[in-house]
Structure formats: C-alpha cells, structure tokens
C-alpha cells in the first residue's frame, strides 16, 4: 500500500482544507519540516485517525478534533482523507467528525474506489481498511518521536514481543485460541450437566479448579518475569551512574572486574557440579561393584581350590559309571535301581567343558570390574577438590564485592552512598523475585501433573457412557487442536525472532560505528552486544537499535506479503511514518542514519525539526526526497515582543512564525 495524498479539513491546527501529496517513484522520501508544536505529530495522527480511529499516546485531547478558529466561525465538522494505491487500484478513505451528533457516533468512515466513472463507494469501509493494513500491524508503521527513541529499551520488552507477533500475523491464531478456550469451557459445562455420575462431577470440579490455578500461576509467572526485567534495568541504571560518578568510579571499576570474575567462577562451579553428576552416572557403578567383584573372585578361587567349582563330578566320569553299570567300588549298578538313579542324579551338577568355560568367564568379568573401579575414586576426588576450591574462591569474591559495596556506601558523598544503598535493596529484591519465579515454575509443573492425572481418570470413566464419551471426544479434539496451534505458533515465533534478529544485525553492521550486535533475551528484550558481552544502552544507542528494529519489522512484513501459512495472516507493504527519528543521535550518527532511512521502506515519511534536519542530514537525504513540506505557524495577533523564528532550508531563509494573519493555524507549504 502507498499513500498518494492526505487532505486535512479543519483537523486540529490545520484550518480549512490543506493537502500533502506524496511522491511516486524512486525518490521515496517525503520530508516534512516543522518545529515543536507546529503539527508534526498531528499529521501522523491524522493518517492513523482516518484509517483506524487511533492516535499515538502523545496526541493530547484526542476528541478535540475540529479546529478552534473553524469552530468559532460556526463549523462543526472536520475531515481527513487519505488517498491510497493498493494492488494497482486507487482508493479514497475518508473519516469525518461531526460535533453536532449528540448521543450518536460522531465519526464516520467511508471508502471509495476510483473508477473511470468517478468514485465508487465500497460497502464495508472498515473491513476494506483492515484488509489493506490490519490494525494490529498499523502501529508499527507510524511512530512518534518518543516511541522511535525508546522502542528497543529494555523495559519495553513486552511491546517488542507484541510487535513481532503482530507483524507475524498471529491475531487470527490468537482469536482461534480464544474460541477454543471458550468451546472447552462450554463442553466442560455440558459434561458436568449430563454425566449424572458423582465421581465425574467431582473430577470435573477438580479440573476446573486446576485450570483456574494454572491460569493464575501462569499470569504470576509473567508478572515475575516482568518484575525481574524492571529490577534488572533499575539495577543497571544505578550501576551505570556509579560508573560515571567521579567519587565511585574507581571502586565501581574494581567491582565490575570482581563481578566478572564471580561470573566466571560460577560457570566453572556449575561445570564442576556437572562433572560430579556425570561421574555418578558413569563411574559409581564400578565403585559399588568393586567390593562385590572382589567377593565373587575370592569365592570362585576358594571354591575352585577346594574342588567345588566347578563340581567335583565330571560329566564323562559319571556317564562312564552309568554305561558300565558298575560303581567305582566294583559293585553292580543295575539300570532302574535306586542306586543307579542316585548316580544319574549327579549328572545335573556334574562339571563339563561348558560349565568350566562359564566359571572362567565369570571370573574374568569380575576381575575387569575390579580393575575399572580402581581409578574411579581418584576421578571423584579430583572433581570434589575442584568444587571445594571454586566454592572457596566464590565465597572470597562475594566477600570482596560486599566490601567494595560498603566502601561506596561509606564515601563522604551522601548521594553516592544513597545510590549504593538503593542498588543493594534492588539486588535483594531481585534475588527474592528470582526465587519466587523458581517457586512459581515448580508449582506450575506440579499443577500440570495433577491435571494430567485427573484428565486420565476422567477419560476412563467417560468411555463407559456413550453420551459423555462423545463430549470427551469433543474436548479431546479441542485440546489437541489448541496444543497443535500453540506448537505451530511457537515455532513460527521463534523463526520470526531469528529472522528479525539477523536483519537488525545486518542493519547495525551497516550503520553502527562500533561492532555492535543485537540479541533477544528470553523475555524478548533486545540486548546490545559488544565484544560478546551485553552492554548497557545510552539514549542514542537505544534510538539506533529502535530504528534498526523498526526497519527489520517493516522488511519482515514486506517479505511475508504473499505468505500463505495455515494459521497466520500474510504480511503487508505500507509506508513508514517517523516523527523525529533522529532526536537522541549525535551529529555523526544522524548523518549515517539519514543515509539509511530511505532504505527502510518503499515509502518513507519523515517529520523533522530544525535540531534534527541539519545541513548534513538534509544532504544525506537529498537524493531520495521526492516531496518536501514546511509547516508554518500563522497567528492572528501582532508579533509584539515575540522573537522571530527563522530557518535556512536548502539555502533559503524561511520565517517559521507569521503574525497578523487571518487565522491562528498551521499552514502547510510545499517547498521546491
């Protein structure tokens, strides 16, 4: 989708009818110059309001739509029209506001298609707009200054996660999940009403209780994860301030180094513990068998010495006596007699070559076990000694870190001492929050196991009754579908995460001055990585990362425009509108980002103030600018003592505020 025109009619500070036309062609950037308060955010919000009746959080008094001067002159209506090009057709979308419509809907949306015969109204305007840009995706194409500055901030991790899901087109799957949940509850109620079996009734109640507990525990887990992220950020902010504070700088540097050593020791400790666990799994069997194998060898040797193992009777010897029918004492041994049977009985335990081989093999096996076990205690002793050494090292480091903290707290500068105390408190809270999270996770696992048990019993009972069996079949199908949907969503999301992360890194490689990389943490927070370590972000770095992330989202949406996944909406191509995108960047970054901005989307609209649109920035953008506008503030009253406000744009000095005009309003002027 491409915006070709925006017409404002008595909308906010724009008196009368004013128009912005957007370029079509290779020069894809529209540049709108305006100082603060002149209407940059209003232009962005005019488009958002027209399409979705949405506005950005910074847009104050969102219901105050009609221009003041127009209202004084008796006008009660305002209107925004957006002309778009979508799939090779031209459309007009129009939202109007009528203050006279007391008690009725004040805004109305209409959509038309440009036909050879004129404008043809579309029957369902809202549905049409939703097809062009799904509302949940729209907000990631329209950014006001603050949002573009802090989108990648750590505290914004939820929004980052949401943005990836929205751009991925998960809303259909989300509604499907919600429908399946409702359906499951409905089936549960039916089961409860129709079973007539007390045990089923009881188990159904149990399932309902467990489900509700699971939901509570899951939302508690999310809350704890959020708390931990916030506390980590607060902690990092204090540490950053201590790193910068003259009095504490040196001590904080030492603490940073000790903390790094502590982190390494903890990693080594974890690996030593794993070694011991591995040893238990692989070698402990030899230690147990050492004693047993020794006993076995001794027994075999002793019995062998006494001629008991193998048996003292040889099989051939006994067979010879039976065949000869004569005993060793030369007495006759007639077949079928009791004496003959007693001698034949000896064959069962008589020794032969096979039995002999077995005894030899058993002894050799015992001896092997005995030999393998002999070095096992040494391996364990080594691992234990390493564990003890690392534990002592960790305790020592913890003590040293504690002392460094006390040193900062003891500094004569009250402010630094206060900061350190606050840091310590946050650290304590963080520890408690981590423990709580662990407990919640364990509780969740326990609840899942309980629920699984109850589910199984219910299934068994339900099979006995045809009516309930059908209801359980329904529930089973719903639950399996939910499981499949969840699995598919998870795999799509993690794939999207990887793609977007790779795209952000590609952009950083092109734009950043340092060898920065980006990484998503487990909560979808974006970390800035320098030399393989997560590094705290300055306001400028946050803005740089935010812009890279926005660009990656826009590209991801464009790449998915023809996607036909089972559970996802396809992506979209839409203009990217950025208000004050360079606010926190220093001049050198402003220039390199300005060179990059035109590549962000097929159509880019930039709203910049004098502090952002300096000569370097304008020069970098110039080859891509297809249309340029200046917002001029006009006032009815005289200048009085007010200072002039001028700005040089493309070599021409312009008055930005005019006095003694017919209306107080913002005037849109096309440049060039």
């Amino acid at each position: 989708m491409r915006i070709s025109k925006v017409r404002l009619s008595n909308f906010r500070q724009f008196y009368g009818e004013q128009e912005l036309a957007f370029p079509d062609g290779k020069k894809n950037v529209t540049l709108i110059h305006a100082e603060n308060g002149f209407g940059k955010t209003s232009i962005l919000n005019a488009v958002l309001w027209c399409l979705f009746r949405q506005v950005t959080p910074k847009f104050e008094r969102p219901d105050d739509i009609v221009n003041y001067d127009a209202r004084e002159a008796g006008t009660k209506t305002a209107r925004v029209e957006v002309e778009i090009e979508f799939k090779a057709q031209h459309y007009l979308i129009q939202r109007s506001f009528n203050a006279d419509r007391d008690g009725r809907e004040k805004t109305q949306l209409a959509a038309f298609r440009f036909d050879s015969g004129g404008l043809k109204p579309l029957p369902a305007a809202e549905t049409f707009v939703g097809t062009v840009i799904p509302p949940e995706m729209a907000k990631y194409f329209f950014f006001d200054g603050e949002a573009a500055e802090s989108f990648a901030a750590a505290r914004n991790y939820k929004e980052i996660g949401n943005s990836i899901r929205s751009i991925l087109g998960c809303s259909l799957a989300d509604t499907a999940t919600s429908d399946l949940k409702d359906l499951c509850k409905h089936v549960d109620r039916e089961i409860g009403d129709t079973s007539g079996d007390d045990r089923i009734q009881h188990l159904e109640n149990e399932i309902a209780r467990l489900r509700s507990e699971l939901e509570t525990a899951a939302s508690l887990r999310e809350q704890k994860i959020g708390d931990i992220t916030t506390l980590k950020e607060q902690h990092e902010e204090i540490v950053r301030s201590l790193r910068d504070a003259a009095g504490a700088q040196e001590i904080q540097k030492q603490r940073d180094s000790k903390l790094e050593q502590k982190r390494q020791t903890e990693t080594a400790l974890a690996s030593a513990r794993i070694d011991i666990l591995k040893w238990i799994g692989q070698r402990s069997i030899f230690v147990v068998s050492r004693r047993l194998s020794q006993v076995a060898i001794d027994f075999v040797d002793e019995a062998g010495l006494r001629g008991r193992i193998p048996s003292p009777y040889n099989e051939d010897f006994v067979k010879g006596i039976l065949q000869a029918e004569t005993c060793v004492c030369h007495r006759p041994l007639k077949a079928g007699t009791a004496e003959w049977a007693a001698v034949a009985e000896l064959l069962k335990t008589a020794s032969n070559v096979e039995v002999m081989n077995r005894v030899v093999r058993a002894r050799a096996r015992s001896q092997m076990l005995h030999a393998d076990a002999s070095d096992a205690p040494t391996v364990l002793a080594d691992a234990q000694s390493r564990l003890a050494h690392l534990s002592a090292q960790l305790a020592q480091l913890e003590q040293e870190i504690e002392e460094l903290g006390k040193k900062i707290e003891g500094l004569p500068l009250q402010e630094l001492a206060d900061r350190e105390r606050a840091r310590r408190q946050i650290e304590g809270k963080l520890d408690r929050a981590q423990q709580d999270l662990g407990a919640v996770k364990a509780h969740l696992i326990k609840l899942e196991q309980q629920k699984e048990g109850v589910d199984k019993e219910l299934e068994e009972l339900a099979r006995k009754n045809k009516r309930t069996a059908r209801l359980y079949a329904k529930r089973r199908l719903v639950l399996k579908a939910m499981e499949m949907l969840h699995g598919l969503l998870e795999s799509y999301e993690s794939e999207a995460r990887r793609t977007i992360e790779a795209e952000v890194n590609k952009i950083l490689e092109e734009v950043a001055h340092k060898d920065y990389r980006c990484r998503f943490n487990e909560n979808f927070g974006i970390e800035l990585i320098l030399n393989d370590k997560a590094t705290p972000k300055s306001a400028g770095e946050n803005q740089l990362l935010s812009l890279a992330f926005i660009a990656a989202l826009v590209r991801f949406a464009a790449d998915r425009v023809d996607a036909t996944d089972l559970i996802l909406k396809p992506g979209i191509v839409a203009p990217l509108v950025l208000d004050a995108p360079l606010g926190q960047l220093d001049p050198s970054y402003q220039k390199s980002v300005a060179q990059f901005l035109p590549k962000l989307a097929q159509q880019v609209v930039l709203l910049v103030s004098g502090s952002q649109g300096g000569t370097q920035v304008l020069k970098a953008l110039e080859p891509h600018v297809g249309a340029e506008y200046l917002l001029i503030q006009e006032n009815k009253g005289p200048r009085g003592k007010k200072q002039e406000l001028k700005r040089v744009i493309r070599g021409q000095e312009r008055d930005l505020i005019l006095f003694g005009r017919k209306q107080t309003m913002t005037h849109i002027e096309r440049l060039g």
Partner: protein
Amino acid sequence: MPDAQEKRVLTFLKELMEIQRKYGNELKNAKTNRQEEVRELLDKCVAKEVADAD
C-alpha cells in the same frame, strides 16, 4: 499422536482457521457468528470421528 488422530486434528484446525479468516476483518456480530460456526464445526468433526469408529 497416532497418524489418524493427528490428521483429524489438522483437518479440524484447517477448517477452524478458514472460519477465523472469514471473520478476520468483520466487525459487526463477528464474535457471535464465528463462535457459532466453530461450534458447528466441532460437532461435525466429532460426529465423523464417532461414525468412523463405529
């Protein structure tokens, strides 16, 4: 999940998503109509499952 069961779940999911797409951009009465259709779909799928089992 055995193959036959997985196939049944997948068929159900496909038809469920068709319904979601149909009502995806609808605003008026979308939820009620959509949920009604989803309920009918579930009845249909389970009836087929039972018939196949018999």
